């Protein structure tokens, strides 16, 4: 029987598909279900001058601190329980990201929709009157061709398509072909990211048989279809330290240590990097396990 093609890859094979200067969209939301194993692999690579498009969390902070970002498109960067992301703050305050595009968070969704639908823009109200349109003078407004109830032709924000070269997303389960389910309470916008991109790579907690995708969860959770996906990687705990409910919650203790190092001295950050980010993904996960064992032992 003929079967659709399999797309299972390694983390490094995914990163080998990326190149300098690419526009990369990163799924999830703030400190939630981020493809962190893939982000960590980018940190280890020689990639540079990236345009990063993200409702940002530590993905943005880490890439900024590593000097990987030439242009950042975001609406916020936050770790939630640590409201302000220290590495992002540092990058902004030291001016190390050459180009900054701060959008309203709803504009960001509309921009992804426009790209996913191959439209140059979509209209919305968000942005009007705010400094989003002042600080991004390239974003134009457009007059409605239809009169409203008062006879006005409303001027609306023409949100430009956020076209991506590559999307990186992390879901709970996938099959080898790229069909994937989220098992937590929120799909975030991962389906939009992959449709807005020329190529999309999906990491997941577990690769299962296609039939296994719906064996214990409703079909409505099948967020992503294989026709949108170019590669699948199994990366257990791959969203760490962001949450990947119900597989795991956010690692608040680790996040606190990350934020302390990021907001501390250069030596603090160098020590964090040496301990956690100097090896491959297996080494990272082992270092995280050791970090928790140490905390337990200290009790």
């Amino acid at each position: 029987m003929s079967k659709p093609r399999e797309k299972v890859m390694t983390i490094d094979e995914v990163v080998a598909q990326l190149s300098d200067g690419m526009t990369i969209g990163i799924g999830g939301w703030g400190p939630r279900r981020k493809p962190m194993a893939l982000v960590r692999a980018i940190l280890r690579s020689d990639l540079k001058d990236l345009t990063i498009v993200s409702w940002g969390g530590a993905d943005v902070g880490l890439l900024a601190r590593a000097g990987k970002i030439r242009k950042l498109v975001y609406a916020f960067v936050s770790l939630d329980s640590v409201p302000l992301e220290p590495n992002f703050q540092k990058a902004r305050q030291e001016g190390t990201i050459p180009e900054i595009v701060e959008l309203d968070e709803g504009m960001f969704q509309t921009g992804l929709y426009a790209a996913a639908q191959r439209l140059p823009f979509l209209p919305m109200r968000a942005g009007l009157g705010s400094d989003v349109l002042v600080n991004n003078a390239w974003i134009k407004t457009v007059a409605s061709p239809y009169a409203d109830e008062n006879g006005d032709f409303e001027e609306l924000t023409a949100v430009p398509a956020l076209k991506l070269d590559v999307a990186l997303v992390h879901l709970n389960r996938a099959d080898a072909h790229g069909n994937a389910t989220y098992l937590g309470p929120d799909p975030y916008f991962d389906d939009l990211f992959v449709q807005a991109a020329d190529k999309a790579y999906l990491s997941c907690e577990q690769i299962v048989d296609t039939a296994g995708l719906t064996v214990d969860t409703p079909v409505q959770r099948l967020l992503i279809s294989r026709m949108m996906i170019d590669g699948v990687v199994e990366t257990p705990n791959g969203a760490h330290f962001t949450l990947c409910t119900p597989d795991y919650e956010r690692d608040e203790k680790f996040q606190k240590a990350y934020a302390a190092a990021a907001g501390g001295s250069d030596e603090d950050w160098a020590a964090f990097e040496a301990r956690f980010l100097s090896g491959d993904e297996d080494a990272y996960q082992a270092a995280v396990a050791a970090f928790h064992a140490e905390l337990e032992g200290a009790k």
Partner: protein
Amino acid sequence: MTAPTTESSMSTSSRAEVCAAAIADAFADDGEIFASPMGMLPMLGVRLAKLTSNPDLVISDGESLFLGGTPPLFAKADVVEGWIPFRRVFDVVAHGKRHVMMGATQVDRLGNQNISAIGDFARPKRQLLGSRGAPGNTVNNRTSYWVPKHGPRVFVENVDIVSGVGPARAKAAGPGASKYNDIHRIVSNLGVFDVKGAGDTVRLLSVHPGVSVEDVVAATGFALTIEGDVPVTREPTESELMIIRNVLDPKNLRDREVPPVEAGAK
């Protein structure tokens, strides 16, 4: 001074409790809409409103669930009455049946709000969250602000970056921006305000018990619109105090955000 000597009396309300009731009042006339509080005191105030003046309010867990009941602050388990993942929040924002109460690192004389950055946008002195949903909220649905620590560095003549759009700027941007712009209330630890002063300016509506108009003026970095005698913000009722203390916030988290004002001090 309103600080009474009977400290144990139920009717002795703390500043945080006055703020909670003032926030609840901001949601009292909203009808059946999605109340979106950002932060602890707004959450307390919204839930107080749902248990008193406006039981039709729709509230969420702040993540992705509409809650059927009115649980205490930060309680997890409750009856779920709907699904509100982030993408559907954007749908409700655009639809308009929502009242959000956001924070404000700066708010200015024209009711513009900043949560993006302090200083020059190109190279900020202090990077904050980013504009989040403030630009979209303020041109789509009713928006209020909560300021736990009223001072001249928060209430400034002009915000450094306009995240939330006040009525004057919305009007200048045209009917697409102004037709649904509705900056409803600014509640601080000192008083209650709206943006309906002459020329769409911030207007003092009431001062909290123990606070004078002069206190508010001194703590505000722009000329407030003040019309006639300014009333005192109402104190919570006995039943509101019971709900706040015994039901919604038994751990007294509210005092951490707005510390109690010592008797005799202002």
